[in-house]
């Protein structure tokens, strides 16, 4: 149990601080809230790519990646330190979480040597922004029910179908695509994973507007899109296992991404100090203080939970299921905090009326939180994972698990 730096970690932190001081500007509390992992404007995409490139050139992009793949070869504790230090600076949204958090571990586990050699360096440098083409209109939580077809044609595969909820597809150069290659076997057994270039003929991405007002995800249509077999990721009909690697990494990437929680409890204190409740500053109200304390204790706990996940990783354990805990707690906390903040403004109840428009920031948080409770596996899916894999409860009844896909209703 040691929350302080070892001498090596202190050296790493010092180096990181020095580099950041030379290359970025400290946050000063006036930053507009943003999606931590999503760009909402083309300018944000450009800025994010430039920042990623600069980090890659400085040797700070792939901290835990093996040196053979161009990374720093560091450990998870160094990643925590980097996240802490980078978090103090004004930096663009990290639109590379799919690339580095999901695609990279999937490639390292299942890719061919050629795929690793060609793709991994581009993930680090930020040239290639990646998206994850999994969910479909008729298959979200029940991912194995996807219908997008992959038909073999000579050395190519031909893809036809529709994906949805694809974050960042409109600015991604590449995607990993799960498609149905075999309809004559049970639904989990006929899937294959591919790497796809998003500018290939026959692909069309249409943006979807979310309740937050942002448009960070898309519908993606595939019309006879040709993919060479060399871009297949993992075995034919073996895509489910590949996808599981991606999804387990997604859960804990979301759980350990510190900034995804949005506003901090300290910002609630500042808000409560500035608004009036029953003729007194709201911060002097006992109910307000009790809620702020509850939120703060949960937020701290989540932060330390992410550190525990990193510790398990650094000890060579695979705590992937534990990512579900952080994922489960995060969205709900964000939603409750933002709702409380909006109510703090009393009769205005979230209508921004100050020049700084603090209510506006909280409103964006409030309207972003529902997405946190769905993306990367809904709250309900996370609870199933915890109950089944950590607590040993019986799995859900899956009436269709042995039926060939072609015979499913």
């Amino acid at each position, binding site marked *: *149990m*040691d*929350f*302080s*730096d*070892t001498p090596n*970690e202190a050296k790493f932190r010092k180096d990181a601080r020095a580099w950041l001081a030379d290359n970025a500007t400290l946050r000063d509390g006036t930053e507009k809230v943003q999606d931590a992992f999503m760009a909402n404007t083309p300018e944000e995409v450009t800025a994010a790519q430039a920042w990623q490139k600069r980090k890659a050139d400085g040797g700070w992009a792939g901290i835990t990646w093996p040196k053979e793949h161009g990374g720093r070869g560091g450990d998870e*504790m160094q990643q*925590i*330190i980097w996240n*802490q230090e980078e978090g103090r600076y004004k930096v663009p949204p990290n639109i590379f979480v799919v690339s580095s958090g999901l695609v990279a571990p999937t490639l390292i586990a299942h890719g061919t040597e050629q795929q690793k050699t060609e793709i991994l360096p581009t993930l680090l440098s930020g040239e290639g922004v990646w998206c994850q083409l999994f969910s479909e209109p008729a298959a979200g939580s029940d991912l194995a029910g996807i219908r997008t077809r992959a038909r073999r044609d000579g050395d190519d595969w031909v893809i036809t179908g529709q994906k949805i909820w694809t974050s960042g597809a409109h600015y991604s150069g590449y995607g990993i695509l799960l498609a149905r290659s075999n309809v004559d076997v049970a639904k989990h057994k006929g899937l294959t994973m591919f790497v796809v270039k998003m500018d290939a003929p026959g692909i069309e991405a249409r943006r979807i507007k979310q309740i937050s007002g942002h448009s960070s995800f898309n519908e993606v249509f595939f019309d006879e899109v040709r993919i060479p077999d060399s871009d297949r990721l993992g075995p034919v009909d073996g895509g489910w296992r590949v996808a599981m690697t991606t999804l387990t990494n997604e859960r804990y990437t979301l759980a350990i991404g510190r900034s995804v929680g949005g506003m901090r*409890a*300290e910002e609630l*204190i500042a808000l409560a100090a500035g608004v009036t409740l029953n003729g007194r500053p709201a911060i002097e109200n*006992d109910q307000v*203080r*009790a809620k*702020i*304390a*509850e939120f*703060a*204790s*949960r937020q*701290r*706990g*989540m*932060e*330390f*939970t992410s*550190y*525990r996940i*990193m*510790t*398990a990783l*650094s*000890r060579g354990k695979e705590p992937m299921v*534990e990512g579900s*805990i952080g994922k*489960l*707690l995060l969205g709900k906390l964000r939603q409750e905090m933002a709702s409380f903040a909006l109510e703090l403004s009393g009769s205005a109840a979230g209508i921004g009326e100050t020049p700084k428009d603090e209510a506006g920031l909280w409103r964006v948080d409030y309207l972003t939180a529902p997405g946190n409770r769905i993306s990367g596996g809904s709250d*309900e899916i*996370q*609870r*199933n994972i*915890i*109950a*089944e894999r*950590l*607590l*040993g*409860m*019986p799995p*859900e*009844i899956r009436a269709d698990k042995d039926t060939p896909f072609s015979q499913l209703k």
Partner: protein
Amino acid sequence: MDFDFSNDQEEIRQAVARLLDDHTSFAKSHDLLDQGTGFDRDLWASLAEGGWLGVSIPENYGGSGMGPVELAVLAEEMGRTLAGVPFGAAQYLAGPALVEFGSEAQKSALLPALATGQKIVTVALAENSGFAPDAVASKVVDGCISGVKSPVSDGAVADVAIVAALDENDAAGLYIVDLKGDGVQVDPLDATDPTRPQSRLVLTGAPADKLSGADAAAINRLIDGAAVLVAFEQLGVAAHALDISTKYALDRTAFGRPIGSFQALKHRMADMFAKIELARSNAFFGAWALAENDERLAEAAACARLTALEACQFACEESIQIHGGIGYTWVADPHLFLRRGWHLKAMLGPATIWSERLVGALKTPTEKAV
């Protein structure tokens, strides 16, 4: 950085867990419950014999000189096994107070007896529904305390109490009081957890031996440290309450399948687990802050306390519901956990008090490395 127990600490856990598993059982807890006074003397003797009562007492006073993190390991196991012994008040509060503020004579007189279990030591902080220095009204005049302290864990069996009281200048301090001596009246209280008996001490000019330097700030620090250790005990209770629930949910069938296969119960147990793990993360930070005497101890302790209170109460309450009708009966085990949870809540007070402590700690800006 390393956010988990070390291998050595896990070995300590296994050793103490073996001893506790050998000497505790639900049947024994039920006996203590029905009896309503006293404690598990067989377990107490075994803990003393194994050296487990002196874990964080320095070696030159008969202990083994380990730190708060090792004590946290013990606390979690004591909670898990619902141990019915006068452990917490002595180990989390009285021991640290004596080690830090006792004179050589005071330490020599009490620490070896505490470490070997020869004397039962408790603390009497609470009165007027509070336990922090600002709630104290008991008064020391000419070296003798008068006042009413309540509740006091194990007051009926303890030999000595460390009592919080005001001096002639109304400054809070800590005093050693011989509970077998003059001016001490011990009244039994009706506790939610009769396996951990509570008392009211009525002190009428009881001779008091001051612990020098234990001022209000020091008492608050001791309370913060104890909150961290109690959080581990709460984690032990909560995790075991969840454990008996999952076992029951696999065993019990309804509508032709185990009730643990229904999402209504799966999801509730997942929520129990998530709350426990969240509290565990805060407790880990608290243990480190306590061991390092970090400036963030107050914040860390309040976070650990608040999330442990929530996790423990939720797990214990829902454990009864998951057990259904049988869980509502006296002879069943789930209410043992619920009662212990309330004992640990009473020990340092509920969330209302700790929310205030946390907001107070957060308002003091400090340069945060983490």
